[in-house]
């Protein structure tokens, strides 16, 4: 009798495992299918693409790549260069200055310390679109459209990154350590740069990755600010692809351009997926 119940329980577990793995495999398929198709199609010639659908690579990848890379009307090398400049500079500035600000409100007991902290938390939730109208107006007024630094400098004030850094400091930096460094006679900036920053390395790294990905993918603001072909970033170029006369396009090249837009982030993700996934949870509230 008991043996029988045991067998039933085992069978039940087996069935639920099969169902669960089935669901997981289906979702995995759904997540990868479109990207797989994109990679396949980027290796096929326009004629092959018109001919029909297949899951097998076409052997035309190099030609498509060269066509895409050398296309003068889209100019993807310039776009990638611009995107890299904006993304790398933003990543460096946002992580360094957020760490600096978080350290400032965490370690020092100045008068408005708590008010400052709460203020930053409050502005964290204001969507960036609210400032967009004024931002665009000012950019046009002072002739600052098509200036890449205008997309970079604002990342110094990133409330969400500040919040993350502050939580990290609270969890990892003992104040005694700062005291000890002071006794050794270091000045405050040196303490931050040489002692605190190395401790914050994991947090800085995670935020740099997220910031890089965020600016690499950013479309709304760059699309409003950049209209000079020499200054456009990749997402703006991808969007112009959509508005161009579609029927005349070599589709193999179009797929290749999308691959080029996505690939840098995909490469970063394959290398760092573990720490990125960890970073997703540590940034938000914990119970």
């Amino acid at each position, binding site marked *: 009798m008991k043996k029988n119940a045991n067998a039933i329980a085992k069978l039940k577990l087996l069935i639920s495992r099969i169902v669960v793995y089935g669901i997981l495999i289906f979702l995995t398929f759904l997540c990868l299918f479109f990207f797989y198709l994109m990679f396949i199609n980027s290796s096929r010639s326009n004629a092959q693409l*018109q001919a029909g659908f297949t899951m097998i690579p076409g052997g035309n990848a190099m030609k498509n790549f060269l066509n895409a890379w050398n296309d003068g009307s889209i100019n993807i090398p310039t776009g990638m260069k611009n995107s890299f400049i904006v993304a790398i500079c933003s990543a460096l500035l946002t992580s360094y200055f957020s760490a600096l600000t978080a350290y400032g409100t965490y370690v020092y007991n100045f008068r408005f310390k708590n008010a400052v902290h709460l203020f930053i938390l409050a502005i964290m939730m204001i969507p960036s679109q609210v400032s967009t109208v004024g931002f665009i107006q000012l950019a046009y007024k002072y002739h600052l459209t098509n200036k890449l630094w205008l997309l970079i400098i604002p990342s110094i004030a990133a409330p969400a990154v500040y919040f993350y850094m502050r939580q990290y400091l609270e969890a990892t930096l003992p104040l005694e350590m700062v005291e000890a460094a002071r006794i050794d006679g270091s000045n405050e900036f040196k303490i931050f740069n040489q002692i605190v920053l190395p401790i914050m390395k994991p947090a800085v790294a995670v935020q740099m990755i997220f910031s890089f990905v965020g600016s690499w993918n950013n479309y*709304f603001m760059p699309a409003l600010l950049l209209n000079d072909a020499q200054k456009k970033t990749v997402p703006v170029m991808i969007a112009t692809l959509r508005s161009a006369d579609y029927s005349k396009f070599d589709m193999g090249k179009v797929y290749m351009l999308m691959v080029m837009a996505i690939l840098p982030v995909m490469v970063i993700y394959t290398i760092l997926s573990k720490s990125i996934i960890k970073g997703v949870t540590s940034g938000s509230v914990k119970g």
Partner: protein
Amino acid sequence: MDKSRKKEKKKSISYAKWGYYFIIPFFIVYAIFTLYPQILTIYNSFFEYYRDGLNIIGPRFVGLGNYAKLFETNTAGYVPIVRYTMNTAILWVIGAVPQFLVAMLLALFFTSTRLNIRGQQFFKTVIYMPNLIMASAFSMLFFTMFSQVGPINQLLISWGVVDKAINFLAIKISVRSLIALMNFLMWFGNTTILLMAGIQGIDEALFESARLDGSSSTQVFFHITMPLLMPIFIYVFITSMIGGIQMFDVPQVLTNGKGTPDNTSTTLIMYLNNFLGLSKNYGMAGALSVLLFIMTAILSSFVFKTIRKK
């Protein structure tokens, strides 16, 4: 005693100024690039101020005129802001409902000791990936896939499901479904990981004792997991809503900014974007931004509460 206290006080004062030095770059940049533009946005919302060809009209003070104008019926016979708010809400809901259901299920699967799922790292890596993909490129990819000459139509024709290519972008339901599908794919992995962390934060002993009491897994879910997960669930849910209000890249690129068919997939930010195009209608854009801000602020106040509680 008194002396040492004095000394301590002096010490903290002498370091306090460093606090200001450290936070000053943040606040200078914030004031110039965020706060001042925000104030300007609000200020603009009370003025008629736009470009008509080469002429610049205004700025002329119109009070709440721009706000009133936002709620006027247009020539096509509908109130744009009402329609676009509804569009945004519908697009968010049909993406978010499956997103949260699937994420909740997966979070339960992954944390279940009974099921003991293997390959978790692999599955998590895969389902989170779409979140990092450039939304505009992802949307462009969907456009090419579902275009009339794209692989999906080729597939449907070769299978004999349809005999003529479907123009997915001309059908309301299919455009909305595609946008929702993309949003679902981009966000369910992220939600899964956050909910999972929430479940893992619940004291293991509670599950243990419930199991010893002979509670079923449904009982455990409704009486232990869900109530204790609630703060995090609400946080993730409202953050998702705020993200929904800001929906832009996906529908913009998929429909080439037109919100086809007949503006049934135009979102609020696409509407804002139209005001900032050639017409540079700072007045109307300002008024719309203020409304967006109010909507978001109401939702954010809930999030702020959950953070503060911690």
